[in-house]
């Protein structure tokens, strides 16, 4: 009864060869289909995969309320009643549209390349809500062909299975789980006022410490004060900082940027990155720039605020997303209409506005 090695057995992980065959078959299928004009989704291992949750992609605030007040059964029934009504855009929607625009530009320059953004919907929503989600994706004509509706199970395992480069969710617990598994992730919040954003250029802003870099220097500030921090940074100027949870995402963006540079499109590159740090250029800035250089990475603009509030500057930059580890900065950004995402990592989680929080308060449920 037992077959020779090479034959498939149900469920055992396919050999690479077998998966290559499957991929080739799917490619042929898409290329054959005369009816569809949609571009073929890229192979996950070549793409920059962005996983968004349903609540960040769409505004599900009222539905969420039904879930919290009336329970799961009523919530699903409610969604079914409204199945033909598309959701309104959520907080990661502008970011997703900007990603789609970059893909369009990449496809123009490199029609056969699979180094593209791949947007995946990963939600622990019940599959019955899926019909309304798919209807909404159709309504806005978003290029989201891959999704995972886990019906209540944790989505974190799926993030790895989809080779996710960045995960965005409203649930800080899931985001924390993802970061602990080594996946770049951030928590998003409903933003009331939003600035008008560019529809030709994706703009991503990053805080430095505990986002791109580890929190090692921030620990020094919190525990020993600013003066020690300045001395330390000067002394170790040439020692690269350790990497932080979003470093890989910056790296992925850089890789796509270079594809535009290679075709002489640096000026009109549809991706622009910003470093927005509370460090000051004079005393602590050099180490940051040298670290980036040692990693072979660049940011288009590095802005050193020397402790000044980030809100007004971000308002001018108008990023599609801004990553920071401290809620204080997130709130400051949001007050002036910037879409900000919290990275729950490092020593910053134990402090609020400079004061140490009690350990039990610091743990978010």
């Amino acid at each position, binding site marked *: *009864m*037992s*077959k020779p090695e090479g*034959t*498939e*057995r*149900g*469920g*055992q*992980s*396919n050999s690479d060869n077998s*998966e290559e*065959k*499957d*991929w*080739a*078959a*799917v*490619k*042929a*299928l*898409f*290329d*054959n*289909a*005369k*009816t*569809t004009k*949609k571009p*073929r*989704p890229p*192979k*996950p291992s070549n793409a920059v995969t962005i996983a968004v949750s349903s609540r960040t992609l769409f505004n599900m605030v009222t539905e969420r309320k039904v879930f919290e007040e009336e329970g*799961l*059964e009523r919530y*699903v029934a409610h969604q079914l009643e409204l199945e033909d009504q598309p959701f309104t855009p959520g907080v990661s929607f502008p970011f997703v549209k900007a990603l789609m625009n970059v893909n369009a530009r990449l496809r123009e320059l490199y029609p056969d390349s699979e180094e593209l953004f791949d947007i995946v919907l990963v939600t622990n929503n*019940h*599959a*019955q809500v*899926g*019909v309304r989600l*798919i*209807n909404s*994706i*159709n309504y806005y004509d978003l290029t*989201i*062909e*891959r*999704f*995972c*509706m*886990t*019906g*209540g*199970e944790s989505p974190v*395992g*799926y993030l*790895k*299975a*989809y080779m996710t480069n960045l995960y965005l969710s409203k649930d800080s617990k899931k985001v924390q789980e993802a970061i602990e598994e080594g996946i770049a992730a951030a928590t998003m919040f409903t933003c009331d006022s939003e600035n008008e954003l560019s529809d030709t250029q994706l703009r991503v802003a990053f805080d430095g410490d505990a986002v791109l870099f580890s929190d090692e220097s921030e620990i020094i500030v919190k525990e020993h004060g600013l003066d020690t921090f300045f001395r330390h940074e000067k002394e170790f100027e040439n020692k690269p900082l350790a990497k932080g949870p979003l470093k890989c995402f910056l790296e992925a963006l850089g890789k796509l940027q270079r594809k535009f540079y290679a075709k002489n499109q640096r000026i009109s590159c549809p991706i622009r990155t910003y470093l927005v740090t509370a460090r000051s250029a004079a005393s602590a800035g050099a180490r940051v720039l040298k670290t980036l250089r040692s990693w072979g990475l660049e940011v288009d603009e590095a802005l050193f605020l020397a402790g000044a509030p980030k809100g007004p500057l971000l308002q001018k930059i108008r990023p599609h997303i801004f990553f920071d580890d401290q809620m204080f900065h997130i709130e400051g950004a949001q007050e002036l209409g910037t879409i900000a995402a919290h990275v729950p990592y490092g020593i910053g989680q134990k402090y609020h506005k400079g004061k140490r929080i009690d350990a039990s308060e610091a743990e978010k449920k």
Partner: protein
Amino acid sequence: MEDKKNYSGPLMIALQYNDLFDLDSTSTSTNTDVLPKGRAFTFIKAVQAVNERLVEQNKTESLLFEVILIAKECSEEIKMKIVESVKHYGLEIGKFFFYKKEELINTLQSNKVKLFLSTERDDVYEALHTGIPAALLYDQADDHVLNRLKVIFSGDVIGFSEDSLDSLSDFGFSETQIQTFKAAKICMKEFAVLIGQMRGRFGKENSPLCTCVLTSWGSRNVCASALKTLREWGVDVDEAFCLAGAPCSPILAVVKPHILWDGGLHNMRDLSTQCQ
């Protein structure tokens, strides 16, 4: 094929003995009459857990799983070992059938099996082709949760309507391949209706039975169509996955299904060579 509303009577699933027990690593120590556990073990335990919960809710419940074991003609010694091992592990096996090699299909048909489960993809394919409902028994990792039975339906097969199945020829599928798709869809429907009824005995949370849809190559609209079709058949699917060609195995390793209905992907292997 009629819809059987409120079907009463067992949902019979046929397993092959070499999936239930591991015959390859038969130890040389012959003082044991018990065969080591095989790939189907977590499946059968999960099935028994569903039955227990169904009976808990309704003592007179008749829509329960019944597992029968089929085995090719083998020595009396092996037959004895099989029966002993089943007893030893406390497995609820309804019947045993021993058949000659060529008679697999007949054996399945004459026993009105509702599902033939096997880890051998070719056996599954052959059965589907002759109209017997068959699905892959997914190879479980040892640490899998034993008390939740997961069934994955193929969104690719279910999501295409009768008419659009014919249009698969545009994609390069042959007539035979399209016929197999259609046969598979009919089999899936019959099984889905029964599973739907069983699933309906439990609420959305804390159910020992979980239904899923996996669309491996179809578009998101094919997936939506599959969700709606399953709803019509009485299955409110719990989990849905749409891969658009992404590799299946990493996802399946997280989902950890027991029963996996094939999406016809192996049909497509030939496609890439055909279109050159």
